[in-house]
């Protein structure tokens, strides 16, 4: 029996593909919480995420453990180029998802698509309804993917490295968007990434995975400033430092500026 304030509950999950790739992990996601799962390649973080909605690749199956989900789930994928149908206008894709979720007619679905495009801050949303994925920039495509995830009115948002393929300036905008949406819509979120800094920007709690197991979990700030497990320490140690950015010098007044 799951408590009503729990969105996701994973117990002793084992995923196997001839050998176990996720080997007995357990964690909870509370309603409204943003949990980050970090790890390197082969840690099993993506597979764990996908198992929540049974979206496992062929050859990988859940052989033990349980996953309980309370609420509708939407998923934001990593690569917008493969997540979107290249032959269909993006407005139609989002409308189709909305129709499927709400069972409305075409006109209502189109209106909902427009509403979603506005929600994800897509510039010139009306024009974008008829645009094809290749006509959009990387950042715009990813916003469409977020809109697609929201089209089903989810209560839980799963994000699989949603900004890894994006430029750093675009990444910042998409992360801000995800944060704002989460607050506004009260979503629970599970965010998978290999980038500790990215995850710390969005999530309040962290789970660190290695080779199919959870090695550490805790509040984001606690894990990042005082890591307990040697592997977490190693990951943090490997993050290259960036010097502190100075504040920009004030613009000197120029003639005719009107400054007094």
């Amino acid at each position, binding site marked *: 029996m799951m408590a009503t304030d729990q969105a996701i509950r994973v117990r002793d999950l084992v995923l196997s593909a*001839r050998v176990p790739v996720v080997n007995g992990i357990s964690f909870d996601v509370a309603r409204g919480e943003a949990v980050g799962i970090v790890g390197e390649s*082969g840690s099993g973080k993506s597979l764990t995420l996908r198992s929540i909605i049974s979206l496992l690749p062929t050859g990988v199956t859940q052989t033990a453990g349980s996953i309980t989900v309370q609420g509708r789930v939407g998923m934001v994928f990593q690569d917008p180029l493969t997540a979107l149908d290249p032959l269909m206008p993006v407005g139609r894709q989002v409308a189709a998802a909305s129709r499927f979720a709400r069972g409305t007619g075409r006109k209502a679905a189109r209106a909902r698509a427009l509403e979603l495009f506005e929600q994800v801050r897509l510039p010139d949303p009306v024009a974008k309804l008829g645009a094809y994925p290749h006509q959009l920039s990387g950042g715009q495509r990813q916003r469409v993917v977020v809109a697609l995830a929201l089209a089903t009115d989810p209560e839980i948002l799963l994000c699989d490295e949603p900004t890894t393929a994006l430029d750093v300036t675009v990444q910042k905008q998409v992360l801000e968007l995800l944060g704002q949406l989460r607050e506004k819509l009260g979503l629970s979120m599970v965010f998978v990434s290999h980038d500790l800094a990215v995850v710390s920007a969005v999530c309040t709690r962290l789970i660190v995975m290695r*080779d199919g197991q959870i090695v550490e979990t805790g509040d984001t700030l606690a894990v990042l400033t005082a890591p307990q497990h040697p592997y977490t320490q*190693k990951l943090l*140690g*490997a993050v290259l430092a960036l010097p502190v950015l100075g504040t920009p010098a004030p613009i000197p007044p120029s003639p005719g500026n009107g400054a007094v």
Partner: protein
Amino acid sequence: MSAASEPPVTVPAPPAVRTGPQTFLARARRSPTLMVGLAMTLLLLLSAVFAPWLAPFDPSAQNLTGGLLPPSAEHLLGTDQLGRDVLSRILFAGRTDLRIAFLAAIVPFVVGVLLGLVSGYFGGTLDYLIGRLVDTVIAFPFYVIVISIVFAVGTGEGGIYVAFALVGWVGYTRVVRATTTALRGSGWVAAARGGGLSHGRVILRHLLPNILPQAVVLLMTEIILIMVAVVTLGYLGLGVQAPTPDWGTMIHDGQAFITTKWWLSALPGLAVIYTGISLSLVGDGLGDAWRVR
């Protein structure tokens, strides 16, 4: 805080994903197709090589009174219309046909692979010209060309070698060109050129080993095709000439007796089929063994 340098690593630290044998020989041993194919081919080759010792009779020795005898203790597969021992003839015919097929396969293989490499690597006009040459040759039905060439050059072995040298390279060129074009853009090709290596070196030392597996598998199929063509030419009287035994002429000669002494045609036919199967299995098996990762 910087991470410590990675200590020297002993290889192979097997990456988690890769299961299965890592060397060519290991994979080869695990391929039942290859093992069976090699066994069958070995048997074939041994019987051809040792035909003079294995054959109970001289294949050309006629015995006009003992013609068309059914299989017996003395003649295990019977005799043909001229009293010659069928078993001996099949063994010696195999010797002839296999020799011709293997030899005739060499020149097309070498020429075809080289043209394919050059065509795929350089592209441009050279590729275009070779492509048009390929199109021209392919436009003609195979047997029409082969028979025409044999008519022009003369029947017998010589004609067969010339015919296949002129026509047989096309299959390799198409396949090798396609793979070479695909590999041409690889990082390691750019690295080889960037390292100062010449075009020739890159083609022969870097690209060739990567396309060779595919080409050798095709070679197996081509040998079978050549074998069948040799037999067909023999059947039509345009190939190996009497008295040299040849499966094709044997099939032709046995035609007249197909209703009564059906084995005279069927047994050489089976020999051809057996050859085809063994080489085909070897080709498939090699493909299995060469698949890296």
